[in-house]
C-alpha cells in the first residue's frame, strides 16, 4: 500500500440542477494503446478484442477498448498484458472523468460541444472540444455522457459545465 495519499482531480460533491447531475467519477485504469503500423490485427488478437473503429468502443467482459484518436485506443479496466505490438502508456492519471446524467444533458452539452449529440448512441465515442478544452465524450445509456478532459483543466471544465447547467436551468424555470 502506498503511503502517499491519492487525490482525485476535483473532490467536488455532485452538482444537480434541473434534473441533471454532474459528478466526478473514477474510471480506474486507463491505458493508451497505439499499435505500430500494420499491427492492429495482431494487437486485437493479443487483447482478445478488436481494435475499435473510429468513434467506437469494443468490449470484452469488464474491459473496454475505447477509440481515442488516430491509431490509438484507451483500454479501460484491466492492466494490459506485456509484449503487445503497440506503444503502451498508462494514462490513468492524465484525465478527469465527469458523468453528466439526467433530463437536460443534451441541452447542456449543446452549449459546450460543437456536435449534435441528440441522436448519439450508447457506446459511441467522440474526440472533440468542450469550449476550448480537449474532450473525449463517451455516450452512455439514456442520454448520459462521460466526459474526459485533461486533469489539470478539471476546474475549468467543471465551471463551464455547471455554468451551462445554471443557464439551462434558468430557462427551464422561466418556461
Amino acid at each position, binding site marked *: 500500500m502506498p503511503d502517499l495519499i491519492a487525490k482525485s482531480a476535483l473532490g467536488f460533491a455532485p452538482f444537480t440542477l434541473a434534473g441533471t447531475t454532474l459528478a466526478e467519477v473514477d474510471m480506474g485504469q486507463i491505458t493508451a494503446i497505439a499499435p505500430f503500423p*500494420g499491427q492492429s490485427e495482431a494487437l486485437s488478437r493479443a487483447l482478445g478484442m478488436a481494435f475499435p473503429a473510429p468513434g467506437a468502443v469494443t468490449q470484452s467482459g469488464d474491459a473496454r477498448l475505447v477509440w481515442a484518436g488516430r491509431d490509438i485506443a484507451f483500454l479501460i479496466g484491466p492492466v494490459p498484458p506485456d509484449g503487445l505490438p503497440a506503444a503502451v502508456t498508462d494514462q490513468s492519471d492524465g484525465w478527469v472523468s465527469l458523468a453528466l446524467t439526467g433530463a437536460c444533458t443534451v441541452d447542456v452539452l449543446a452549449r459546450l460541444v460543437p456536435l449534435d449529440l441528440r441522436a448519439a448512441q450508447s457506446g459511441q465515442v467522440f474526440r472533440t472540444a468542450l469550449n476550448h478544452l480537449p474532450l473525449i465524450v463517451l455516450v452512455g445509456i439514456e442520454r448520459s455522457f462521460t466526459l474526459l478532459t485533461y486533469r489539470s483543466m478539471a476546474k475549468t471544465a467543471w465551471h463551464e459545465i455547471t455554468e451551462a447547467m445554471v443557464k439551462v436551468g434558468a430557462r427551464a424555470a422561466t418556461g
Partner: protein
Amino acid sequence: MRLTCPLCGPRDRREFYYYGAADYLRRPAEGASPDDWNDYLHNRDNPAGLTQDLWYHEQGCCAWLKVTRNTVTHEIVAVEAVAVADAGGAA
C-alpha cells in the same frame, strides 16, 4: 466552415489547426540545393481557386489532413489523411 475528417466525420473548423500549403509534404531530400529549400519553405503558388493545404485535427483525432479546397468559395472538395490510418487493421 466544416471539414469532414476521414476518421471523425464532419466537424467545425474550430477543431482544426491550419498549417499551410501541401507543399510542406514534399520535403527536399538531404543534400538538396538551397533553391529547392527556399522554394519548399517559402514560395507558394497561392492560387485563387483550388488548392491543397494541410490541416491538423488538433481537437479531435490528431490526424494530419490534406484538404483540397477552393480559396475563393471555401468549398471543400476532398479531405484525406496525410498518413494512411492504421485503425482496424487497414494497411
